[in-house]
């Protein structure tokens, strides 16, 4: 089969899985429903692998024409190049592992089949997002993953206490995403205006080959709109507050959607449109600073969070900010590299936290945990690997990808480098704090729960182990030049530069070997120092995060998420609610209805006045009649 024919199949399998589970899943045994969904995703992964290995030049596969009006021609078509296939591999690969994990994690849930329906549907939408051949298809997937995310965040809508809150979190995520979506949609309109098409191939040809560029303002508008879309999906300032709330969903969802795949959609969008951003330096500056700010703000908030998933959520936001810094520096392959490694270790961490929560019978507060390292051994080791990877421990995957970003930042400006180092340091601090508080020290919850703590089944630990291995060796995907002189280095870089439009035109200056070594040394020093201090504070002294009331000012500030939600509440929610009330009670019910009522009243009132004439006495009628006649006669006499 040719790649053209394989591409639709790639999408078809998750859709079939969703369809079967959605229609008949209730009657299927749990194991069948779960394995079906996992299998479908895995088959997609295999197909993706086949295509990836055979792909040389970009391939476009037309499904059908969606809209064809004179000026507007939109195809439903798929497009495969190394970028989209790389993303597909991450989505289906990590996706399969998370599906497998969910089979164990969700085994007690009565909405089992529904969960797998949504997961498969999500994979399908995500594949549309990365494989679509134009921005219109991308938008389809873009909104599609938003819907699945909404459904999965609000998955436990019937929960006794938190049912409505889960719903609220889902709604918040969807609405914030939609704000970004509107930005993206307007970006699409602008592109239609200036290019007349939304096809990647045509747009890139116009920009790169024909050098037909819209003027600078237009280009700025287009790129900034695309970036607004990206901030919504990838949880950047100012649209990031939904992601921590999205942790209301089941943990595998947080791993798949809110760490590994969906939130990287914004990054994919920017890398896909790199040739547009290349000519919009001002937008790149904005991306750089937004990413930097997000990275620091989120890392700061993560320092004093006590919910295991919230820490990881803010960590995700922070890491995404880091990736946006890379995008702002035009280090696209580095960005994708970090997306990949981040997908590995963050999925690992989330799944690990899921395993911990599973063991703790649903408890998420780290103040109640502690000393779990011997009780759940595999989870402990894999979690440790994830922690080391994200903190940039030498030779782990996160070390390489973060280092590349730091290197480019150093090349750009020292201030940005220092700010990034602060962010990276904070990352190491909160991650080690999390690790030590959860796995070391003494168990702090009731005996009942302690008695219940157990290692997860194989379906849950297997994905953990696979991801742990990937988190360790992920760095080889894009080894820096100083390690191996030869073909082994910069694998991902070469791969993406090969046939992704625009990327081969960008020549980033790599820092020279000495600088690289120094920077690496700094990173290693930070990581090791933090590890050392953390282990003393939390392991030796056995300190436990203090109660909310005892926090110092900066700790409260971090613990309360820097009051972003409250700020948005005052700035947007409250005024809109006020307007709603005013519109309804004053404008609608009083003014507009009042006008109608007023017309009615006027008629009735004038009737009342005229009524007075009608006395009911014949004499008076005749009197007026005579007056009338006299009046007429006089009038005509005068007229004569």
């Amino acid at each position, binding site marked *: 089969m040719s790649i053209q024919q394989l591409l639709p199949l790639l999408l078809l399998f998750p859709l079939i899985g969703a369809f079967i589970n959605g229609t008949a899943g209730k009657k299927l045994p749990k194991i069948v429903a779960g394995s079906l969904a996992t299998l479908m995703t895995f088959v997609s992964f295999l197909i993706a692998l086949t295509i990836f290995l055979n792909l040389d030049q970009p391939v476009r596969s037309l499904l059908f024409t969606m809209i064809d009006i004179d000026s507007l021609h939109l195809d439903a078509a798929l497009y495969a190049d190394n970028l989209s296939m790389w993303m597909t591999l991450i989505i289906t690969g990590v996706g399969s592992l998370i599906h497998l994990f969910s089979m164990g994690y969700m085994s007690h849930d009565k909405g089992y089949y529904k969960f797998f329906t949504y997961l498969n549907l999500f994979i399908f939408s995500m594949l549309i997002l990365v494989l679509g051949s134009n921005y219109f298809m991308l938008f389809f997937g873009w909104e599609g993953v938003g819907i699945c995310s909404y459904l999965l965040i609000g998955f436990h809508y019937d929960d006794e206490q938190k049912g*409505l809150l889960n719903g609220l979190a889902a709604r918040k995520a969807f*609405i914030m995403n939609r*704000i970004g979506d509107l930005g993206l949609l307007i970006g699409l309109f602008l592109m239609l205006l200036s290019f007349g098409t939304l096809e990647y191939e045509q747009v890139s040809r116009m920009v790169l080959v024909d050098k037909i560029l819209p003027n600078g303002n237009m280009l700025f508008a287009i790129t900034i709109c695309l970036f607004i879309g990206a901030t919504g999906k990838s949880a950047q300032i100012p649209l990031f507050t939904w992601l921590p709330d999205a942790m209301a969903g089941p943990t595998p969802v947080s791993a798949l959607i809110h760490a590994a795949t969906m939130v990287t959609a914004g990054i994919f969008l920017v890398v896909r449109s790199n040739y547009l951003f290349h000519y919009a330096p001002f937008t790149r500056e904005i991306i750089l600073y937004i990413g930097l700010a997000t990275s620091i703000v989120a890392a700061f908030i993560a320092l004093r969070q006590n919910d295991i998933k919230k820490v990881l959520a803010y960590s995700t936001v922070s890491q995404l900010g880091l990736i946006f810094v890379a995008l702002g520096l035009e280090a696209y392959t580095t960005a994708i590299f970090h997306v990949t490694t981040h997908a590995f270790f963050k999925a690992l961490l989330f799944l690990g936290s899921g395993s911990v929560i599973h063991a703790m019978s649903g408890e998420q507060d780290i103040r109640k945990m502690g000393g779990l390292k011997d009780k759940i051994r595999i989870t402990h080791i894999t979690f440790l690997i994830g922690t080391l990877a994200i903190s940039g421990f030498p030779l782990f995957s996160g070390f390489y990808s973060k280092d590349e970003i730091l290197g480019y930042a150093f090349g750009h400006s020292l201030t940005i480098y220092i700010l990034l180092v602060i962010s990276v340091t904070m990352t190491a601090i909160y991650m080690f704090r999390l690790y030590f508080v959860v796995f070391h020290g003494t168990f702090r919850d009731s005996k009942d729960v302690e008695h219940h703590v157990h290692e997860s089944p194989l379906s849950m630990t297997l994905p953990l182990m696979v991801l742990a291995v990937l988190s360790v060796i992920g760095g080889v995907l894009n080894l820096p030049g100083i390690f191996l002189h030869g073909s082994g280095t910069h694998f991902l870089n070469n791969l993406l530069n090969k046939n992704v439009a625009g990327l081969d035109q960008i020549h980033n200056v790599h820092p020279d070997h000495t600088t690289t070594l120094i920077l690496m040394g700094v990173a290693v020093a930070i990581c090791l120092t933090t590890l050392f201090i953390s282990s003393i504070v939390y392991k030796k002294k056995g300190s436990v995060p203090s109660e909310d009331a005892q926090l110092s000012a900066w700790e409260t500030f971090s613990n309360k998420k820097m009051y972003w939600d409250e700020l948005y509440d005052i700035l947007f929610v409250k005024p809109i609610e006020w307007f709603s*009330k005013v519109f309804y009670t004053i404008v609608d019910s009083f003014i507009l209805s009042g006008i109608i009522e007023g017309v009615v009243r006027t008629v009735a009132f004038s009737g009342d006045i005229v009524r007075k004439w009608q006395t009911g006495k014949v004499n008076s009628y005749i009197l007026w009649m005579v007056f009338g006649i006299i009046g007429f006669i006089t009038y005509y006499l005068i007229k004569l």
Partner: protein
Amino acid sequence: MELLILPLALSLVSLIIPKSTRRFAALLGALASIVIAVVHLTSFHAGAFVELFSSNHQTFFRMTYQMGYDGLGLAMILLTNVIVFVILLANFENVNIASNKMFNSMVFLMQFALLGVFTSFDLILFYIFWELSLIPVFLIAFWFGEKDRKRTLLIFFIYTFIGSLAMLFSIFYIGTLTTGNYDYQTLVDIEMNTKTALVVCMGFFFAFAVKIPLFPFHTWQPETYTKSPMAGTMLLSGLMLKMALFGILRWMLPLTPEAYHCYKYVIIVLGLIGVIYAAVIAMKQNDLKKIFAYASISHVGLIAAGLMILSIDAFTGAVVQMVNHAFVAVGLFLAADIIDRRLGRRDIQTLGGIAVKAPKFAFWFAVICFAAVSVPLTSGFIGEFLLIKELFTDNAWIGVLIGTTLILACVYTFRAYQLSMYGKESSFNFNDLTITEIITFAIISIIVVVFGIYPQLLIDLVKPSLETILMTIKESSI
């Protein structure tokens, strides 16, 4: 001609059918009218004009009785027939109403009037059908509505009636410009100066604006929707409203292009205000029906604004969105009514936890909600994409502001959905959907999704006639 005669005949026949078989007969009749419409569709060639009936006798009012349809008309005919079927099906379980002879009769009379509106190519005829359509819907609301409906319905009747009278004045005025001929082509060919055109279009605009309803003329709508029975609300939101939008497209724009540049931004701005204003109100309402009523104002504001952009994309988008909105509105009101019928209340603050009791209902309601916020893969997305795109192209700020409907719609739709459906299992009894209700929802969803994935089906049907209309407008407006 059988297209029109059938509903009229059905309207009379349903008066004499015995009570036990009445609702089945009504469904069958509605199905037959769909079949006839589909037969017409199969023999229709894109861009053709099919004459149904015409008479050149110079009779009373010198009417020429020309009726027929082009692609746009045929699309609206199909829409009407399908929606009438869906409405009957939606009410099927509600035996009190579905087995009432007057109800069935009035629904078919309504169908007849609507088909008349969509096929009239004569202004007087158009007006007669337009007014005729008011009677059945008023009577349905009056006979089957909620307790305190009288005053509301009176305001509704007077309001729309005054609107129609304004249109009648315009019609007579336009009649003085010809030799008393009200034929479509003749009227389109009239050359007016801007002032005359403005006077003429004001009458039309008022009638249409009240019925759509556009922003300051909407106050009758939420109350009427709330007080009407579900069938009445569905007829009002699903079909009556489309009549007005169709009227703008078929009559107002081609007749008065000379004044186009005067009213273009007036209507766009009113539509824009309506979109945001109604959405903001809908956010804090607690009555499900009222939320959806304001949602309806918000959605149609966008269509009305989009119709003012003279481009084929905008017109197509408007037609797609008209079709979408008809189905979505019917679906939303059906969901509200299902809750109302099962529990006897619609206040979302007192609801909650229905999803646990009725998972099927939760699923279909969610599908309709997604369609209502026009996510991709539903026709709403295609419609809004085209409309917002064209509005944006015309004026970026208006496009951005009106685009906020994407966000606002999410807020109120999902607030309504979550407060009523989510939450812990509650004590009340809630039976899950019956088979007819599932079929109703399924029909709505399938249509919405099919047009969402492959809108070209609809576009091919309506595009040629929209292009013709566009050409006539552009010739005289420049």
